[in-house]
């Protein structure tokens, strides 16, 4: 069997015939324009919109501009900002650039500043580079005098400095770079001529902290270039109006939302989505889809290039292993996920682009943007968790508008069969998941305020008005703004002891300026809203043993989360970068590993994007469960399972929540089925166990998955309910989101993680690299300590407020839990059972696989202490 590595396919394939590069996106830029002979007569170029040399270029290629490309030109002529929603392959990017190309080409503008005309902003630096490369093809062919350049974190310092003085006409960059440019005193000069801002993949950017920062930066750009217009490019979304509002200044934030124009290109051919039915029975639990691997392999064999999407890195590693295990034909199959070393990822991308791969197993790293080859099949292992994510991923296949994309969904377990069916129906109906409309994060605002002060002294009144022009901050109150400014300056503490260290000081004319230039330098080093969990490099050693090893020996395979590495003991084996590795030890910032011989590694789950089930799909699943007439369309084992459930227990109506209680072993179980996703269920589980503890039910622990949660106790819950000692209505009452939540949050590790992110973004804690940890016991301070102190002594502090707001929609999903509790008020369907119900089997099987909660960390210390005592008293482990 061939040794499995990520670059394996590259090695075994033919020698590279061409320089590695991505598939030219110029095809995607222009090819979709309709052929001349197409019946769309109305698409004939309007001579007033398209200058002759450009329409000549269209003619030379045998194309005519598409209606939406002309619509954008028309809007640009009227200086109207526009959102273009179009499916992949519709020539979206060219549509975005055409107005700028024409306008720059026709020239004749007076230069007031540095001459930067168009700013293109993409969420991925690779996408910016790709678009630039492929934009240059039409520019050259049209013979236009237009200069383009990219600017990302990879751009050299000298080039970046030059770009600030002598920018190109079109600069392609990322949100972080825009923030950086705006923090320099020369920003007014640089952006004085700015005419157009193009925001690519806006749907992926807007509803996030990065989107908040970008919205604030756009508000500033409008100030510097009052006539600037925006063009948003987006895939289909559930609520276009949120993106339309994002694109324009909000002039009356209290009363109305201003919207950009909307141009929609109706989706091309509908994707063909199948749900795989394997020969083997569908498992009760798990997400690996191991049972169907042979069918997956057959599908790969039947196609040119398959993209195999999974939801976590662990699943990616696992599927990659499994496929190679049965890869009798030695098909070149690659692996791509965010933890892999960048060089390894690039190799796989290049091999894809050159058509040297037959399949790539990938996580969300391949969700967006770049076309790395001619994908003709998308396989999704495990349920896609959201309708929009599924459509986005399917869109990676077949970038031609009029041919349907092919996709196969492979449910990992029985619940996922329902979920895949729901996703399939949603795709059929063209339904998208609605994103929560968000109000801008205060930690991001804090970062922005300091950035603006670094550019030039600011007048708080003026900056407040400017900030509220950005849609996410339209609802910002003056008080919140002032507190944020105060936080930036002195930390904003109730105890006013840092006035003398203030970072911002008033000038004579009532503005605020930074106290010294070092603050600006420090700010520029810490810009951005992407805060990675601390990661450690994984270095492969040739020989075992790490004591006092020179650390530069051996190849870096990628990075793993620090907390994952911390749980390993030397000798543990795990799968990473497509190989089985033996953990040897950690030195400073590196994890040392050797190749392991183990055939069956212990595969611990390390983090890497677990998405909770979307609200929209959850509703569809609930509806499906409540309607027995649709069960017959499901695979037999699943239909039988649901029928058994009606026999032994009940199936809840769509607006109900089912709660089952039953004994099992010497324990008593309470299983609830909210279908609100893992995060909300974990929070609910924490709160329920607190309450059950108070009632005296003696809870022991709980597990949660996307559909249900199970709590087990010493006391008989059925009995407590029957004797009116426990009311389920009270147990599930919304008031648990009050004091109980508050008390739990005080100790919650998730809340501390959330706080850390906010503290870093707001600039309270400087981003640090793990390398500092060791030498820095006097230098670095754990945010956990700060969190504890702040909660006790300044509970109303701005950063706690920001962390709370994040927790509501983030790791704790409190908002969704709140909606659920309100929805099920008086709608709890309680079933007292003698034994476990069919529906409860999957979640009970998670015990032992998933993390069991309710375990406090002192328990670990206590157990360790007990072991020492047993040892000391001669009663050591056998």
């Amino acid at each position, binding site marked *: 069997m061939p040794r499995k590595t990520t670059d394996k396919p590259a090695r075994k394939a033919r020698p590279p015939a061409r320089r590695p590069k991505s598939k030219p996106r110029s095809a995607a830029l222009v090819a979709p324009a309709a052929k001349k002979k197409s019946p769309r007569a109305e698409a004939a170029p309007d001579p007033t919109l398209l200058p002759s040399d450009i329409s000549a270029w269209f003619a030379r290629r045998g194309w005519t501009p598409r209606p939406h490309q002309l619509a954008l030109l028309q809007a640009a002529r009227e200086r109207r900002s526009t959102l273009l929603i179009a499916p992949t392959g519709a020539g979206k990017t060219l549509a975005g650039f055409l107005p700028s190309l024409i306008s720059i080409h026709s020239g004749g503008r007076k230069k007031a500043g540095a001459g930067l005309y168009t700013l293109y902003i993409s969420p991925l630096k690779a996408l910016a580079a790709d678009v630039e490369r492929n934009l240059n093809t039409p520019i050259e062919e049209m013979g236009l005098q237009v200069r383009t350049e990219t600017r990302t974190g990879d751009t050299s310092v000298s080039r970046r400095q030059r770009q600030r003085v002598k920018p190109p006409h079109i600069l392609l960059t990322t949100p972080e770079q825009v923030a950086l440019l705006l923090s320099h005193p020369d920003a007014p000069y640089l952006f004085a001529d700015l005419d157009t801002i193009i925001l690519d993949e806006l749907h992926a950017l807007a509803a996030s902290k990065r989107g908040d920062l970008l919205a604030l930066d756009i508000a500033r750009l409008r100030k510097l270039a009052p006539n600037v217009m925006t063009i948003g490019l987006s895939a289909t979304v559930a609520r276009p109006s949120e993106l339309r509002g994002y694109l324009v200044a909000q002039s009356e934030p209290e009363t109305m939302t201003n919207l950009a124009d909307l141009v929609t290109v109706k989706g091309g051919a509908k994707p063909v989505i199948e749900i795989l039915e394997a020969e083997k029975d569908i498992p009760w639990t798990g997400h690996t889809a191991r049972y169907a691997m042979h069918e997956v392999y057959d599908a790969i064999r039947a196609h040119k290039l398959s993209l195999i999407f999974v939801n976590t890195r662990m699943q990616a590693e696992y599927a990659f292993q499994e496929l190679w295990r049965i890869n009798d034909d030695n098909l070149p199959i690659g692996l791509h996920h965010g933890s892999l070393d960048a060089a390894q990822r690039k190799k796989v991308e290049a091999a894809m682009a050159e058509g040297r791969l037959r399949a790539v197993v990938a996580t969300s790293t391949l969700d967006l943007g770049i076309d790395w080859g001619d994908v003709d099949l998308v396989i999704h292992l495990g349920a896609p968790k959201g309708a929009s994510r599924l459509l986005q991923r399917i869109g990676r296949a077949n970038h031609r508008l009029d041919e349907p994309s092919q996709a196969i969904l492979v449910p990992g377990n029985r619940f996922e069969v329902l979920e895949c069916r729901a996703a399939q129906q949603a795709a059929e109906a063209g339904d998208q998941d609605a994103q929560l409309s968000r109000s801008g994060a205060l930690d991001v605002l804090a970062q922005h305020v300091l950035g603006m002060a670094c550019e030039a002294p600011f007048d708080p009144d003026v900056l407040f008005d400017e900030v509220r022009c950005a849609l996410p901050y339209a609802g910002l109150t003056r008080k919140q703004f002032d507190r944020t400014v105060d936080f930036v300056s002195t*930390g904003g503490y109730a105890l006013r002891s840092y006035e003398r260290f203030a970072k911002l000081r008033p000038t004579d004319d009532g503005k605020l300026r930074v106290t010294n230039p070092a*603050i600006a330098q420090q700010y520029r080093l810490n810009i951005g809203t992407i805060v990675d969990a601390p990661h450690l490099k994984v270095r492969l050693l040739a020989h075992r043993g790490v004591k006092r090893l020179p650390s530069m020996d051996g190849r870096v395979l990628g990075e793993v989360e620090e907390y994952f590495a911390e*749980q390993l003991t030397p000798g543990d084996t795990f799968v990473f970068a497509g190989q089985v590795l033996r953990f040897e030890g950690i030195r400073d910032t590196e994890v040392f590993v050797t190749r392991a011989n183990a055939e069956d590694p212990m595969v611990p789950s390390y983090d890497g994007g677990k998405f909770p089930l979307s609200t929209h799909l959850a509703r569809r699943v609930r509806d499906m469960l409540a309607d027995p007439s649709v069960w017959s369309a499901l695979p037999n084992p699943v239909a039988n399972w649901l029928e058994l459930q009606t026999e032994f227990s009940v199936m809840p109506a769509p607006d109900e929540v089912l709660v089952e209680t039953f004994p099992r072993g010497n324990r008593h179980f309470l299983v609830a089925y909210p279908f609100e996703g893992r995060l909300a269920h974990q929070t609910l589980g924490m709160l329920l166990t607190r309450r059950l503890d108070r009632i005296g039910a003696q809870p022991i622990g709980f597990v949660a998955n996307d559909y249900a949660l199970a709590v087990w106790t010493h006391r008989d819950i059925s009995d407590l309910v029957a004797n009116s000692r426990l009311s389920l209505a009270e147990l599930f009452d919304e008031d648990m989101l009050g004091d109980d939540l508050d008390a739990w949050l005080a100790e919650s590790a998730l809340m501390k993680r959330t706080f850390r992110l906010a503290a870093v973004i707001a600039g309270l804690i400087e981003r640090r690299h793990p390398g500092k940890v060791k030498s820095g016991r006097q230098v670095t301070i754990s945010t956990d300590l700060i969190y504890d*102190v702040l909660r006790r002594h*300044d509970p109303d502090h701005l950063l706690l407020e920001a962390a709370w707001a994040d927790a509501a929609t983030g790791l704790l999903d409190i908002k969704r839990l709140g909606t659920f509790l309100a929805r099920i008020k008086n709608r709890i369907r309680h079933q007292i059972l003698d034994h476990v119900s069919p529906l409860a089997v999957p979640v009970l099987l998670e015990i032992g696989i998933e993390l069991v909660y309710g375990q406090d960390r002192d328990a670990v210390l206590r*157990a360790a202490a007990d072991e020492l005592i047993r040892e000391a008293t001669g009663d050591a482990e056998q």
Partner: protein
Amino acid sequence: MNMLKPERIGLDDFADQPVNICGKTFLAHKFGALYWPAERALIVSDLHLEKGSAFAARGQMLPPYDTRETLRKLAALIDRYQPETVISLGDSLHDSDGAARMDQADIESLHMLQEDRDWIWITGNHDPKIDRTLAGYVVQEIIVGGIALRHEPRSGAATHEIAGHFHPAARLVFHGTSLRRPCFVGNRLRLIMPAFGAYTGGLNILDLAFEPLFGTDGLDVWMLGHEGLYPVAARLLRDD
């Protein structure tokens, strides 16, 4: 099995633990303090008061409540043990300007704690001088009951010593969980105390810096938990 409220087997009260050094008995408390019943003395080390404001002076606005929080814990211990003497083993202030930056309310709380008892500041590398506003006696080291109390432990395998300075911490990997906590570390002849201050970090006791102090005859380690202090076998500990 993971328990919400596991039975406490073997140990009744976890808040403090008896610890023997050179034949004397001490109570080590989960906050990281040591009480010496025979001398009625409470010993703490590395308070690092005003660490927050030291960072603020350099532009990093950490919450200014670390002094307050450290004094609050100290007050709870004084209330529990009612010591006649409190001894702070050096680095009581994060830097030599610390006292000048202290909030008046915090100085007053400190003075209240000092009423009716002796208060001894041992100097450390962070605080070679202790400002008079903090009252108390200031010494470089003292010997009580045959045991030297000083900030920095003497190099080599010295005995009859209780010191601080190193901020010892231990990382336990047990039952699939990893946790890192400040700890007491000793070998019955000398003891290194954990740092007591609210913002103080820790140095892993498996670090080479600890090797010369205890030789290779084995270590006693007590880790600080939320509910108590826990003796842990050194073989369960891991490097960072």
